């Protein structure tokens, strides 16, 4: 069985800023390791064996380049600019605004060197590269490309590479964003299409780059054909089920009307998972069985893969099929500011 891991860490969820201002989370590792936190929102829809992952990279000001490295469950077919309102609409669905407040909905989005480069795409001020390789290879690629990975990165990269050797590196060029007229808080939505067997959301990676007591806040929206089964279950350690219900027709119609979202089915199940945890609590991932039966313990990080592929191997065929339902995680990012002198 083809195994996929899924995962994503993204930087930023600009959209949430409108509904949940400050406290939020997602982190960039900047100069001297300083971490700025912003909340992250991600959408992972799964239909006809394909995962559609949408997240947003937020322009947080400053200059130079920042990046993130995100584990993926498989090789994406396509990486493109996401629709303008998908994430906002999902937030509205589960956090209704009070009556009388005008909707902004519909408004444009302002919002070891052996690693193999599979795909390179430029989206606005984002340079996106899809890589294939083990943890060591991808880590070295990142280092050679100016990423300053946090100290936990070698172990975490191996943790994910042992399940899926596919990673997405996103480098945000703040100077280019400024030149494009992007303002602080503006987001660039990215839509990744990944054929895979089941959704899966990496959560452990959200704590990467954070201290043990740092908070991780993220929202993950899942859209599946039917009610999914999830692991770990029952929820604990900062993971909370905020919404689980048949997706409303109005939501599905709205999502379908956004750019690149015509795949959205006529019916489905909407799940919202909120993460409000310390980094040290996030020792697990979220495994999803889209058919509602038995999610994989391996996918949830509760059990090691039967045969680990090491830092450069291919996924083994008996490893679970996880689908990456993307996830958002700013904290998950190994972000660095390029050309920053390091201390010492």
């Amino acid at each position, binding site marked *: 069985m083809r195994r996929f891991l899924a995962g994503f860490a993204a930087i930023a969820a600009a959209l949430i800023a409108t509904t949940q201002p400050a406290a939020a989370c997602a982190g960039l590792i900047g100069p001297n390791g300083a971490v700025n936190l912003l909340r992250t929102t991600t959408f992972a829809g799964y239909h006809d064996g394909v995962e559609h992952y949408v997240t947003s990279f937020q322009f947080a000001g400053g200059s130079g380049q920042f990046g993130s490295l995100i584990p993926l469950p498989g090789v994406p077919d396509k990486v493109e600019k996401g629709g303008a309102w998908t994430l906002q609409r999902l937030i509205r669905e589960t956090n209704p605004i009070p009556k009388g407040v005008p909707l902004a909905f519909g408004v444009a989005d302002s919002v070891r060197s052996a690693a193999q480069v599979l795909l390179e795409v430029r989206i606005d001020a984002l340079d996106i590269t899809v890589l294939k390789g083990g943890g060591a290879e991808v*880590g070295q690629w990142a280092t050679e490309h100016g990423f300053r990975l946090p100290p936990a990165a070698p172990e975490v990269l191996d943790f994910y590479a042992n399940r899926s050797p596919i990673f997405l590196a996103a480098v945000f060029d703040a100077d280019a964003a400024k030149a494009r007229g992007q303002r602080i808080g503006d987001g660039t939505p990215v839509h990744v299409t990944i054929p895979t067997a089941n959704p899966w959301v990496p959560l452990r990676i959200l704590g990467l780059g954070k201290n043990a007591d740092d908070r991780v806040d993220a929202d993950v929206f899942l859209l599946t054909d039917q009610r999914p089964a999830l692991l770990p279950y029952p929820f604990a350690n900062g993971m909370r089920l905020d919404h689980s219900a048949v997706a409303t027709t109005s939501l599905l119609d709205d999502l379908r009307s956004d750019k690149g979202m015509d795949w959205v089915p006529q019916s489905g199940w909407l799940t919202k998972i909120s993460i409000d945890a310390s980094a040290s609590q996030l020792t697990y991932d979220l495994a999803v069985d889209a058919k509602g039966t038995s999610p994989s313990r391996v996918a949830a990080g509760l059990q090691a893969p039967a045969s680990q592929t090491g830092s450069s191997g291919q996924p083994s065929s008996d490893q679970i099929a996880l689908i990456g339902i993307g996830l958002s995680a700013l904290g998950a990012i190994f972000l660095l500011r390029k050309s920053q002198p*390091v201390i*010492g």
Partner: protein
Amino acid sequence: MIIRTLVALALAALAASACTTASAAPLPTHVGIRIHYSHFDQTKIDVPMGVPITFTLINDDPIDHEWLVGDESFHARHRAGTEAIHGDRPNEISLPPFSVKTTTLTFDKPGPLTFICHFPQHEAYGMVGVVMVKP
């Protein structure tokens, strides 16, 4: 009574001698330290004073590390330092990904010195160890 006292004294002397012998066991002059998953595989190393000690430092990780050994004022300086790369001084070693470096130091004072990687977050992550210099 006298015999018993003499035996006790003899045993005590033997024990003291044994202890002396044990503590005088040769301390290493070649030390290997491996870095894996951003941790030193040795965090307490005893070395003799006044003798050249050769350290072989192995970075197994795909990320940069460094090995800086010194006293507290030395580390306080490096925590706020801005040197991107070390290499001119034998107690300040930069370790690129998957690299091996060797350095030789002679410690002229007894007591503990600390070795730390001062890259952002690395010290807090646990990249700290002690070299105990023994007279």
